[in-house]
């Protein structure tokens, strides 16, 4: 009897755990919209369709190596770059505390884009379309940047969320 109770309890726990992780995956995949938008939700939605090769996520501690952004002005962020340095692929979503922060942030992102263009023009001309047609959207407190293999589709996804 005791054994049966334990077995039932374990099965129930496993089922509950399974449900939880299933819900988490679903939440990431569908992504919230408009007011519910999150930085990580936006990057997850884009990356569900478009690959960032050797993607490495950056955080507030190491973002300074890529973007000249004052992290104190950032409410949330989700940034992925190509770790190997082979490709200019990048996806960066910042939500600033206010519009002034977003304006300064957009300038920093533009500066990063200019720098990447200067580096990759001679380095890998075949990859330049990713930078020449890069997406840079500023919407309220949001600044979103995408340089990837399908910028048009990335733009559609981002605009559908913001």
């Amino acid at each position, binding site marked *: 009897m005791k054994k049966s109770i334990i077995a039932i309890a374990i099965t129930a726990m496993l089922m509950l755990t399974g449900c939880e992780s299933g819900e988490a995956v679903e939440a990431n995949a569908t992504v919230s919209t408009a007011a519910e938008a999150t930085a990580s939700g936006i990057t997850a939605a884009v990356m569900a369709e478009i690959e960032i*090769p*050797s993607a*490495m996520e950056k955080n507030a501690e*190491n973002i*300074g*190596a890529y973007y000249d952004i004052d992290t104190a002005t950032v409410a949330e962020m989700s940034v992925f*770059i*190509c*770790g*190997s*340095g*082979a*490709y200019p692929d990048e996806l960066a979503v910042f939500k600033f505390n206010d519009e002034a922060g977003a304006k300064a942030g957009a300038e920093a992102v533009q500066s990063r884009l200019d720098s990447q263009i200067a*580096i*990759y023009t*001679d*380095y*890998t001309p075949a990859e330049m379309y990713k930078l020449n047609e890069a997406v840079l959207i500023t919407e309220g407190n949001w600044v979103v940047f995408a340089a990837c293999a399908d910028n048009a589709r990335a733009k559609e996804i981002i605009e559908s969320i913001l």
Partner: protein
Amino acid sequence: MSYNDKKSTPADIAATLVILVLAAAIVVLLCIYILKLGGAFEAKPEPVQTTHIISEAAVTETTTETEIIITTTSAVTEESIPAVTVPLGEYDEAFFERTFIVGDSLSTGFVNYEFLPADKVFAQAGLTPSSIMFTEVGGSLVYDKVTENNPEYICIMLGTNGIAYLEADFMSEKMSLFIDELRMNCPDSEIVLVSIPPVTAEHEIDVPETNIDRIKLYNSCIEKLAEEKDVIWVETYSILCDNTGYLADEYAETDGLHLKIHAYPIILSRIQEAIMNYELIQELEAENTSETDAVTESETMESTEEAVVTTLPEETEASEIPVNS
């Protein structure tokens, strides 16, 4: 005839005694043999001699249990066999606080993959041994960054970008100049030259100019340069290639030239190993020099004492000469 009836002759007695003595001798011999055999089982095995030879003899260290012989010459040579072994991929993060990496897009991976902090690396896509000397990264020249860091070791991994269109000799000459410039700007830092990695067979088909023969030629040129310039040499090519001699798939980015995350700990462990062996050699040389100095000093003291004794009367005479003469 009963047993009692039989009378023993002296010959019988003598024969019996001989048999008894022989039997006793056999028993004793058997005992000795058994005892020896037992002793053999109990005996400790011969100590295994482990020998690490760095180069030709100058200093010898010997321990009792496992004999370790470390012999050195004044420079790290290509025949060097490392006395310190860092298992592949098992580098020590803290160790690299003493280093500074200089390189191209391959070296950006150290930061991008978060193996090293950004302030310990000066790297950008497209750099060559020539362009590194005048290209600004993040608004600074390499010399400014290196001077600011003042690291114990400056590790250079450069050359991949020039393989397709620059001659190995030319790049090696530029590397030589770059080493001189670094030494001028950072005289306290030791230079570490790291070989460039191979490419995949697919990459060689796509970009025939960047082939492994040219990479090997360049690596051999800078290895020679390392010897000439007395800098530390780190060979990483062989550990990154597969059995066909091309960059192994597990380390290769899809372009066949850049490196995936797994390659970096391998490279770092090799760099750490080379530096540790260099430091070991320096330590042994210093010990050897201090021993030699001590011997020389005591010999000099003795000879000086003798000299003082022999020259004292002359000096006394000289000191008696008036100063204003």
